């Protein structure tokens, strides 16, 4: 069970990094996530059952997520629609799109196809326990994503992203079109989210169009939990704490699922718990700010 928490936490950490990018860096609360996460899953499942190799499936899923993000950003930029509404629109439309991608089905099992994980398992056979190999594999994947993001935020473009969430006027004065930046940023973020969905589908062994329900809330909860673990403003630490937050969030959800019955809790209550976690984080942050200890702004 323990490695299960870590593996799921790591898979969701990729999604949480995407949520962190939009919510924290861009200051663009993006709800597309609820649609782009299952989109990644269904693209992955469809391309795997269609005989594609897993790497191509992952790339396709990432690309699909980027397109979904583009749609949200374009609605926001072009029609001057508030970002929340733009995200909800895309998310709602994606539900239908995802069913189309699955060829008018709501889910698709991945039992008899080769996924990334069957490759990992085949390699691990007779060498190391499969669960551990899977864990190490996901640690590597998340590490690569994290380092790539860190590197990106050190580039000129990454720095401007940092300024955009902070002071949009400054970006405009610099001769950069904020609309273009939002397009790129929301696109990349949803690419990561879809990538996470693609891994989730393979880990669970099926893709489902309802996979994304409330996922943005769990992503945000992970980001906020991470902010309690580490206080820093170095980008390497910021991304690290998102990953740790995602694992911690999964751990809390596991506790709720397995020991919740002691207090009469069912798995149906987990979304309530996630929401309460966020509200509690906000309350504590608020309390700290009033006391002048200067917590991270919510």
């Amino acid at each position, binding site marked *: 069970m323990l490695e299960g928490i870590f593996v799921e936490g790591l898979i969701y950490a990729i999604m949480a990094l995407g949520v962190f990018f939009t919510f924290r860096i861009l200051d663009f609360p993006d709800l597309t996530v609820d649609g782009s996460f299952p989109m990644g899953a269904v693209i992955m499942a469809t391309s795997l059952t269609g005989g594609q190799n897993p790497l191509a499936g992952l790339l396709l899923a990432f690309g699909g997520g980027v397109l979904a993000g583009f749609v949200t950003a374009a609605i926001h930029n072009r029609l001057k629609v508030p970002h929340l509404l733009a995200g909800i629109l895309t998310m709602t439309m994606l539900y239908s799109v995802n069913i189309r991608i699955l060829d008018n089905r709501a889910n698709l099992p991945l039992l008899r196809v080769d996924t990334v994980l069957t490759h990992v398992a085949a390699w691990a056979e007779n060498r190391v326990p499969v669960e551990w190999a899977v864990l190490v594999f996901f640690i590597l994947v998340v590490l690569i994503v994290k380092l790539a993001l860190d590197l990106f935020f050190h580039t000129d473009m990454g720095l401007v992203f940092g300024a955009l969430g902070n002071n949009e006027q400054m970006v*405009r004065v610099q001769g950069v079109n904020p609309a273009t930046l939002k397009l790129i940023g929301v696109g990349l973020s949803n690419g990561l989210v879809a990538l996470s969905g693609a891994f989730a589908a393979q880990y669970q062994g099926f893709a489902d169009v309802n996979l994304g329900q409330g996922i943005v809330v769990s992503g945000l909860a992970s980001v906020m939990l991470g902010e309690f673990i580490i206080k820093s403003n170095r980008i390497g630490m910021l991304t690290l704490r998102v990953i740790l937050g995602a694992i911690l969030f999964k751990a809390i959800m596991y506790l709720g699922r397995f020991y919740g019955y002691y207090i009469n809790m069912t798995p149906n209550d987990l979304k309530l718990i996630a929401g309460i976690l966020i509200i509690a984080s906000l309350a504590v942050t608020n309390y700290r700010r009033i006391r002048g200890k200067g917590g991270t702004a919510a």
Partner: protein
Amino acid sequence: MIRLENLECTFDTGTPNAKTVIKNFNLRVEPGEFVTIIGSNGAGKTTLFNLISGSLMPTSGKIWIKDQDVTAHPEYKRARYLGRIFQDPLAGTASNMTLEDNMMITCKKGFKWPVISLNRKMRAYFRDQLIHLKMGLEGRMKENVSSLSGGQRQALTLLMMVLSRPAIALLDEHTAALDPRNAAIVMDLTTRFIREHRLTTLMITHNMNHAIAYGSRLLMMDAGEIIIDVAGEEKAHLTVPRLLEKFADIRREDFGNDEMLLTGGGRSGR
């Protein structure tokens, strides 16, 4: 350098609250000119800057920057030629980023590609530039800008603006929010940078002494129009009492006109 032709700007057009903030505005600023702009609150000074920089679109009229009609260009496109500094010292920098990151973002105008330019050479260049500010900031390049004082932030904003090599500087009361000592420091830096980089400058100020002491040309605005425009010899011999006298003269004339209009209107109404 800048040419404004019959510029007009009306807020809430077509409603009972319609208010013309800039009207029949014509201005030509030559390269290298340093224009100071004074006027009471609501005279339209900041609106004028918003129109030039493109954060506000005019109701009618044309705007030329560097002999190019930029009337339809969005703000980020015009920004290539303009360096703008606001009254609020927080407006020009990103608080939760380090000094060197801020300088990296602002040292070049235009779109930023995902390449890493902040290297040792760049840092050395930034350090050299910060030494000129004489504020000890060269030793604090890894600190967040939020730890700087208002005066330091405004000085940094000024330096960053100059490094991005704009053709025109728009300074909107950029020392008004600072204490007198810091205001003096920032003002000294301003004149030095303008001289060194031969910047064409428009500076809004509330301080009549500043408006007279600095620059090569002085504009006074009232109710969206230029009412006084002096340069050269006349500007050199200007004093605060003479400026006030001039303002009073024009105002009296206005009152005269208003009275005539009123009586005229009354007669025709009868």
